[in-house]
């Protein structure tokens, strides 16, 4: 054990986190009670240091970003989730559906930018036929053939299978054929049935989400995972959520990155709730890193956290900050006042000021550009150890 490690252990002992620190330093898995303790312990400095220990063991000083654009193809949705400020009903003011041509225009508008990924998620609008989903991906690929399409959360995939009138396992190869490259992690919310029933009962359940993700991974696709925190859920329900993600990952290995998502209350049915603070968000990053020992990456999604907190999160367990985003709508409807995009050189500078080495990745975590090629060579998969 290095001096550094023994000092960390001593501090953890002082903070009442000795058992957890021993497991973390020894590379052992934390259990449910450890997770609860990490949420309840007031010493965020030590929890952050433990998460940072794991983060540096896996990724050294490397910190990833990508250059992507968002397309939210419709805001019409019939799920009526209480935490959502984005949804509109058909005919309601501001409701829209993008035609495949309009989606193509969005992609065309960014052709001059070095975009490698389009992140495409939206509401559930039952009148959209199966062909629509195939057509919007074909439209993207027609304009920019090399772009990676990361599209459709689990609830959207469930809907697509429904309108296709086929099992998802049969639909997925057709979506891939039309251009789908991987699936995003949004929409997991909190798996617990209690929260599901109270907040988003029209949406798929936690068990269904897991089963859908399992099917996606079985089709050879990678996906991400998330947790929407800071609304009505309990600490135990968060730990339950994270341990269920961990069990899925043990089984499939298909999850690339975990992204804790902060509930933004503005303009939602839960507007009376305060939402998480910056310190809550840093803790969420740290606990995610410590519990999800089998998920390679933890993302501090800057457009939601704000740049200062995302930058700081790189010391609390995060190794990824998402991208330079063009036109994000979902969080901005809920009052996010972050800029909708950030210049690449600014992003690189703030990663550097956080004491990290910026590396641009593609969606599947291959190195596109690297500030240190000896550590992360361009064209190879990003290095992950531990």
């Amino acid at each position, binding site marked *: 054990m*290095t*001096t*550094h490690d023994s*000092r960390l252990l001593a501090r953890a002992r002082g903070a009442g986190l000795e058992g957890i620190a021993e497991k973390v330093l020894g590379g052992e898995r934390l259990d449910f009670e450890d997770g609860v303790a990490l949420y309840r312990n*007031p010493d*965020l*400095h030590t929890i*952050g*240091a433990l998460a*940072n220990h794991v983060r*540096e063991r896996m990724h*050294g*000083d490397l910190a990833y970003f990508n250059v992507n654009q968002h397309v939210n193809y419709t805001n019409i949705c019939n799920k009526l989730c209480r935490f959502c400020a984005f949804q509109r009903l058909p005919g309601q003011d501001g409701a829209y559906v993008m035609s495949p041509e309009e989606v193509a225009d969005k992609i065309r508008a960014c052709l001059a930018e070095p975009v490698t990924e389009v992140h495409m998620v939206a509401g559930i609008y039952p009148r959209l036929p199966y062909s629509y989903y195939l057509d919007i991906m074909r439209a993207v690929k027609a304009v920019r053939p090399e772009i990676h399409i990361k599209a459709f959360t689990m609830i959207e995939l469930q809907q697509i299978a429904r309108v296709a009138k086929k099992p998802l396992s049969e639909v997925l190869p057709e979506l891939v054929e039309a251009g789908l490259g991987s699936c995003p992690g949004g929409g997991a919310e909190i798996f617990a049935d209690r929260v599901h029933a109270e907040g988003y009962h029209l949406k798929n359940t936690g068990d269904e989400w897991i089963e859908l993700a399992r099917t996606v991974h079985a089709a050879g696709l990678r996906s991400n995972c998330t947790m929407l925190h800071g609304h009505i859920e309990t600490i135990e329900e968060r730990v339950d959520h994270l341990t269920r993600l961990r069990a899925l990952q043990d089984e499939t290995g298909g999850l690339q990155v975990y992204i804790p998502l902060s509930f933004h209350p503005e303009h939602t049915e839960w507007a009376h709730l*305060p939402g998480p*603070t*910056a*310190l*809550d968000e*840093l803790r969420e990053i740290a606990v995610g890193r410590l519990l999800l020992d089998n998920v390679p990456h933890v993302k501090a999604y800057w457009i939601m956290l*704000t*740049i*200062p*907190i995302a*930058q*700081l999160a*790189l*010391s*609390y367990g995060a190794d990824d900050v998402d991208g330079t985003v063009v036109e994000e709508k979902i969080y901005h409807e809920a009052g996010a006042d972050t800029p909708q995009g950030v210049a690449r050189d*600014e992003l690189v*500078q*703030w990663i*550097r*000021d*956080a*004491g*990290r*080495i910026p590396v641009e990745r593609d969606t599947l975590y291959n190195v596109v550009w690297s500030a240190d090629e000896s550590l992360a060579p361009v064209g190879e998969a990003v290095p992950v150890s531990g």
Partner: protein
Amino acid sequence: MISQPHTRAAPPAWDAPLASSARRGPSGAELQRIEDKVLAGERIDVDEGLCLHDHADLLTLGRMADHVRSRKHPEPIVTYIVDRNINPTNVCVTDCGFCAFYRRPGDAEAYVLSRTEIYKKVQETVDLGGQQLLMQGGHHPFIKTDWWCDLLSDLRERFDINAHALSAPELDHLAKLDKRPVEEVIRDLVEAGLGSVPGAGAEILTERVRRIIAPKKTTTEEWLDVHRKIHEAGLRSSATMMFGHVETSAERIEHLARLRELQDETGGFTAFACWNMQPDGVPEEEQYPARTTPAVYLRVQALSRIFLDNFDNIQTSYVTQGMKLAQVTLRYGCNDFGGTMLEENVVSAAGCFNLTSIETIERLIENAGFTPRRRNSWYGIVDERHAGATCPRNREEAATHPAALRSGPRGQGALIR
């Protein structure tokens, strides 16, 4: 050949240390030695300060600063003050290229607030339980000490609220307009009712930097000497630092060292606050580097808590950093949320204040594990939820300097009238 008197030096080459190398590389042992020193409550020197600045990672700095804060403030209280910013004039002759507020004399947007306007703002502040008026502004070429003395005594007659007014460069400017020593200006202002002095205008206290960014304003020695005179007159003042422009990391530490030295001498500083330069829209924007990123602010802010071991209080700067990051600073060395700056929240159409920011401030303080309490300008707690007595209650009780307590016009101390 066209001379370019204001051409900026290139921003100093400084790269944040790589976080893991900081702890595990060759500097690791030295950092551990300095950390042990800080944890033991010992003072660190300039070289050690610079080593922390240049080589420590953020987590380590934050943890150390949090430790120092908890030693200084064993009771987990974070204070803030209900106050209002009143800028009586924006007319200024110093032409600082980093300032977006000032207007030259004669400019169409130049203003001097009328007494009626000032009274209205003060009354609104008092009605909301405000404890302090933060009054500072430009270096107006014709507004002299008399004008300020009249204003301060008129306010004292009408309202029960502290005048926290006139930064050191403004006091120095008044002395120059009056052609008399600054201690006389301070004495008159104290008699008229000046209660405490804000720490503005310090920027970076080294002459190389001041000659580049604020050549017409007080020098380093003058800034420090005005504060010395303020403390000798029995008033307390705060101190600031504006970084992130042309200074080097060594100059940041030198700034802190000069403040610490004066504090050793007088004990008159109540608090320290720092912020990075906000270059958007300032007159010489194109000559300044891009705004430093939040991690640099946290680094400097944590380091200042560690280095300024003789300062009781460190303020966060939510106005420049935003509420989210300000909350984090409470775990990176800050024990004070600063002023509520009610002026910033005037809902002019409705003619009333928006107090949401106060609720938010209290919620963020509580969420960080502290008890929020309102204070006065001298860091005495003025809060009905507080069990103990307010101490100090006023400038007389807050005075620390022996000179002020020893000598005075009536032999009872300069402040007692």
